[in-house]
């Protein structure tokens, strides 16, 4: 695959990440160091809290409601433990390897073992001279890492060995999440772009995809495609559930699934609008887009089901909401309201196909449709971001940090190419890492799958020694 020379355009980027100021540009700190605005700090911390809320209980309920009651706790348990594990790994090395300066694929060791993470440390935003407490940024990004890894468990739910989930998570987090986050989001921050030369240097020091100009506002590639591909690989390797295709595997509690979807949505405001890192108009734009894109997706999915199957379902509407949220994630701060409605509508239809037509083609028992929703929605969103970010279509365009203004010529075609590159790199990288990680996990834990009779009886009792419900 030929990758065009994006270098000159990369200096123009505005993306959903910030560099660690300290250590990167000490000379900047020497002069009057900017202090965080308390409105930004409040915003960032609140957003972080609600992104955490997305995984626990949001994702847990969304997923848990969809499985059979005998596996409810296993799903919750996997979400909780993946969350806890990743948050600790994030502290120990993940943050440092993702968000400090290193090479194009991995960061460095500046923040290893939480070194230097004090209340006084600040992190850059997307505005020159505007910083936020680095601990806030650390926590915000921790929440992203946690939910990404937790998303994966939906694909092989109801039959995987618990220990295998943990081993897989450690490996995949380290070798897929961390580098993809670095590739897509790491840059030296806006204050490095003092003139063209400095800008070029800063661009060169950025992540592999960032420097190519890939737009991913809040994690279409890093979070959704990344997790979805890992899930799909897992579903293939772990194999289909016993009885899949001829026994009914009805969701055991769609009220919980809807509650989970709604909590995901609320948290997603933090996810997307918080990715602006400041409480400003850009955050408000991302917020509104995160509101209306899923609404359009709900209407699309509902309409699709109504026309195609005769009845519109609540699970369809809830799935549509998530589809729209996934679709708008990479675009949230880059597109206008019209673009958001379009992306939402298209993502809704695409994911409806993802969980029906595509699912039949893939022939994997992706139990909770991680790929059908997050994969399809993520790819559609990533590509459409390239389209609707165009100022001519109401988008914000790309910001030129050297010229301090929106860059003038936006080419949908070449941006689409960049976006496609981002998608392709993520799909391949995550796929390969996931494959190896699952294989290793299987070796280390006596097989990826529980024995058949344990699967029949349910993982709650056999893996965790408890039952979700008693009447």
């Amino acid at each position, binding site marked *: 695959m030929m990758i065009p020379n994006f270098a000159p355009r990369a200096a123009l980027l505005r993306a959903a990440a910030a560099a660690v100021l300290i250590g990167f540009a000490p000379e900047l700190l020497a002069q009057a160091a900017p202090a965080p605005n308390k409105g930004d700090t409040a915003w960032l911390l609140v957003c972080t809290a609600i992104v955490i809320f997305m995984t626990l209980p949001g994702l847990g309920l969304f997923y848990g409601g969809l499985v059979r009651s005998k596996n409810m706790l296993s799903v919750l348990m996997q979400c909780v433990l993946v969350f806890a594990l990743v948050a600790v790994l994030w502290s120990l090395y993940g943050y440092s390897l993702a968000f400090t300066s290193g090479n194009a694929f991995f960061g460095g060791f500046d923040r290893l073992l939480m070194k230097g993470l004090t209340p006084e440390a600040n992190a850059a935003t997307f505005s020159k001279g505007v910083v936020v407490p680095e601990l806030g940024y650390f926590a915000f990004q921790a929440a992203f890492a946690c939910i990404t890894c937790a998303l994966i468990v939906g694909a092989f739910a109801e039959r995987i060995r618990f220990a295998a989930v943990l081993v897989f998570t450690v490996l995949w987090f380290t070798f897929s999440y961390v580098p993809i986050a670095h590739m897509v989001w790491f840059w030296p921050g806006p204050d490095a772009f003092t003139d063209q030369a400095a800008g070029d240097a800063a661009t060169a020091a950025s992540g592999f995809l960032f420097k190519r100009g890939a737009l991913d506002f809040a994690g279409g590639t890093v979070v959704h495609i990344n997790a979805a591909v890992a899930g799909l690989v897992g579903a293939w390797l772990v194999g289909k559930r016993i009885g899949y295709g001829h026994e*009914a*595997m*009805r*969701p055991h509690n769609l009220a919980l699934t809807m509650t989970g979807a709604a909590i995901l949505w609320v948290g997603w405001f933090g996810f997307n609008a918080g990715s602006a890192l400041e409480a400003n108009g850009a955050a408000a734009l991302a917020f509104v887009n995160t509101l209306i894109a899923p609404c359009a997706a709900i209407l699309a999915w509902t309409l699709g*089901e109504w026309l195609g*199957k005769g*009845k519109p*379902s609540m*699970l*369809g509407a809830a*799935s549509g909401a998530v589809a729209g949220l996934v679709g708008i994630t990479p675009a949230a701060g880059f597109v206008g309201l019209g673009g958001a409605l379009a992306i939402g509508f298209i993502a809704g239809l695409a994911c409806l196909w993802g*969980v*029906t037509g595509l*699912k*039949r083609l893939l022939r994997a028992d992706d139990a909770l*449709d991680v790929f*059908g929703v997050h994969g399809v929605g993520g790819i559609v969103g990533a590509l459409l971001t390239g389209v609707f970010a165009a100022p001519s279509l109401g988008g914000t365009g790309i910001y030129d940090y050297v010229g301090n203004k929106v860059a003038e010529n936006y080419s949908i075609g070449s941006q689409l190419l960049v976006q496609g590159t981002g998608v392709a790199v993520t799909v391949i990288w995550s796929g390969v890492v996931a494959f190896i990680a699952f294989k290793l996990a299987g070796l280390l834990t006596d097989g990826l799958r529980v024995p058949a009779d344990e699967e029949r009886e349910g993982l709650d009792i056999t893996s965790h020694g408890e039952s979700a419900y008693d009447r």
Partner: protein
Amino acid sequence: MKLIVAIIRPFKLDDVREALSEAGVSGITVTEVKGYGRQKGHTELYRGAEYVVDFVPKIRIEAAVPDNLEDIAIEAITAAARTDKIGDGKIFVLELQHAVRIRTGETDDDAL
């Protein structure tokens, strides 16, 4: 004595219970069950997965009655539970050999 087992539509439970009370049946035991028979089930669709649900919710009533109440009870149930649509249910009558009231140890007709 007879043990009368009736399978009825759930929403008819209150009517049947009242009818049996009036008929002199002193007590009943009720179970939520699912029935399969001539009445059609329905189809459910969860994303890509379509399931045909053949079973319909029914209520199973069990009433122990003295022999002389058998016909009266059957009539009472039939009258109260009937809607004339497929799925109204069945009544089954079994011979009951003994009955005991746990509280008192009374047996047979006295136990009912």
